[in-house]
């Protein structure tokens, strides 16, 4: 009897049954099944970019009080396909003097770096690519591929503006990687596990966004800056400079950078949902484990909506403001948050779940209040300094 509630498990078992009947023994069937999943999951990841781009364009449009794509197909649903056809059939131009191999490799690595993240995300209790016991660090490692890709892209184009743009982008990305990795440490701290499955399982009672909202906020901000997305997208803003590190890219290669950025953003949304919003946990997951996939997609889309909302709302931040914000606010915040949470969590490890989480939340609130007070004081002193520096208007105008 097919148990639809446990869809992924049944599907897996049925496929393995097929393989065993084809002559493989059980462990080989299991291995072949894992290999099959590993081969199909990147394809699924790439395919989610299609509805994603449509969704983002619609959302951004509505937030900007316009309609978004609505000509191609009902509600503009076929717009992305039209764009894909266009990009596929554009001429592939490689500038003179560019390093051809690296020039072609960079966009592939950019996409591979993002897709690689999907290997460890648990979509349901038993639906994931692989349960690495170092899953969180694997996320950071896959991220380095993206950084590398940008470096290669900027250098290989034989264009000094591309190189300059790539340098600044990489400087921004590595700077924001510090608070990102620090914020990733918090779910590990609170769950005692480096694997994503363990982190999700530990959120069965309380989601980490409630135990450590500051860490979730840190993750939200740092992940968007890491992906070079608005409001941190000065370096590839269409209105500022002509495309930054991907100046020389056109056609499919440019398409990969474009798709890669959207997909990276959504993947960060999925990761935020896994690490802080409880991943696939939710009502009814015990009896129908397949519901977990629905939950994580909903939560991931919610976090992605936050990203789109931020993109539509905030003005672009200058690079020096960005880097100041990172090194002088986010990094010290992360550095103080970690030991605070660790001490509270360890000190109250014997107490009940609710007391511990309430204490953690309280610690977050205190730290946030402290940071806001310091910022307020600095802001006030800066305003007073500016006011005293301002020269009074000349007497002739003061009438």
């Amino acid at each position, binding site marked *: 009897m097919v148990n639809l509630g446990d869809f992924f498990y049944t599907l897996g078992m049925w496929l393995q049954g097929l393989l065993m009947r084809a002559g493989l023994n059980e462990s080989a069937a299991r291995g072949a099944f894992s290999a099959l999943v590993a081969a199909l999951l990147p394809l699924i990841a790439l395919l989610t970019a299609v509805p994603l781009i449509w969704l983002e364009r619609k959302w951004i449009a509505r937030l900007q009080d316009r309609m978004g794509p609505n000509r191609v197909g009902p509600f503009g649903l076929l717009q992305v396909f039209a764009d894909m056809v266009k990009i596929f059939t554009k001429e592939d131009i490689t500038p003179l003097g560019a390093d051809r191999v690296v020039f072609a490799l960079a966009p592939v690595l950019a996409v591979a770096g993002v897709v690689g993240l999907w290997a460890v995300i648990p979509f349901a209790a038993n639906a994931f690519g692989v349960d690495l016991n170092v899953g969180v660090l*694997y996320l950071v490692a896959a991220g380095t591929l993206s950084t590398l890709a940008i470096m290669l892209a900027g250098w290989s184009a034989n264009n000094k503006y591309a190189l300059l743009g790539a340098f600044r982008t990489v400087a921004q990305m590595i*700077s924001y990687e510090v608070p990102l990795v620090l914020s990733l440490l918090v779910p590990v701290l609170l769950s005692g596990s480096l694997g994503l499955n363990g982190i999700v399982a530990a959120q069965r009672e309380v989601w980490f966004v409630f135990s450590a909202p500051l860490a979730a906020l840190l993750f939200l901000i740092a992940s968007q800056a890491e992906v070079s997305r608005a409001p941190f997208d000065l370096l590839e803003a269409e209105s500022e400079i002509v495309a930054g590190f991907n100046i020389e890219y056109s056609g499919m290669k440019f398409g990969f950078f474009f798709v890669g950025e959207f997909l990276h953003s959504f993947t960060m949304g999925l990761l935020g949902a896994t690490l802080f919003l409880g991943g696939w946990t939710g009502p009814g997951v015990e009896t129908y484990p397949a519901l977990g996939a629905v939950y994580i997609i909903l939560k991931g889309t919610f976090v992605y909506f936050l990203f789109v909302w931020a993109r539509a709302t905030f003005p672009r931040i200058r690079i020096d403001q960005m880097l100041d914000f990172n090194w002088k606010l986010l990094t*010290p915040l992360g550095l103080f948050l970690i030991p605070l949470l660790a001490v509270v969590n360890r000190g109250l490890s014997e107490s009940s779940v609710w007391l511990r989480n309430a204490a953690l939340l309280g610690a977050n609130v205190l730290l946030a209040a402290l940071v806001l007070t310091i910022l307020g004081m600095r802001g006030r002193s800066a305003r007073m300094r500016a006011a005293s520096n301002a020269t009074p208007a000349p007497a002739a105008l003061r009438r």
Partner: protein
Amino acid sequence: MDNAWSVVGIFMIVAIVLPGAALIMARLLGPKKPSPIKQQTYECGVETVGESWVQFKAQYYVYALAFVVFDVEVVFLYPWARAYGQLPLFATLEGALFILILAVGLLYVWRKGALEWQ
């Protein structure tokens, strides 16, 4: 096939091959009309002047350096975060000390003005 990393290996190979195949397909499908003008480097619409090399600020290097130090620090912290729950409170404080020493480092770099983007 017991190794979980073999799955990761297959995953990454597919993740690289799939876009690669798409690139090759696009190259086959697209028009091929190379011309010297199309292949010139882009410089805001005018002809390129001078070599393709620009002076880079030392500031980039400082950021990369600070990143290396803090990256290594955080990597040390992951085993601490995994194990501090099973060990006495003393272990938690060890980690706090570790972070404090590096926070002092950040403060030093900050006060020395090495974090300013000139």
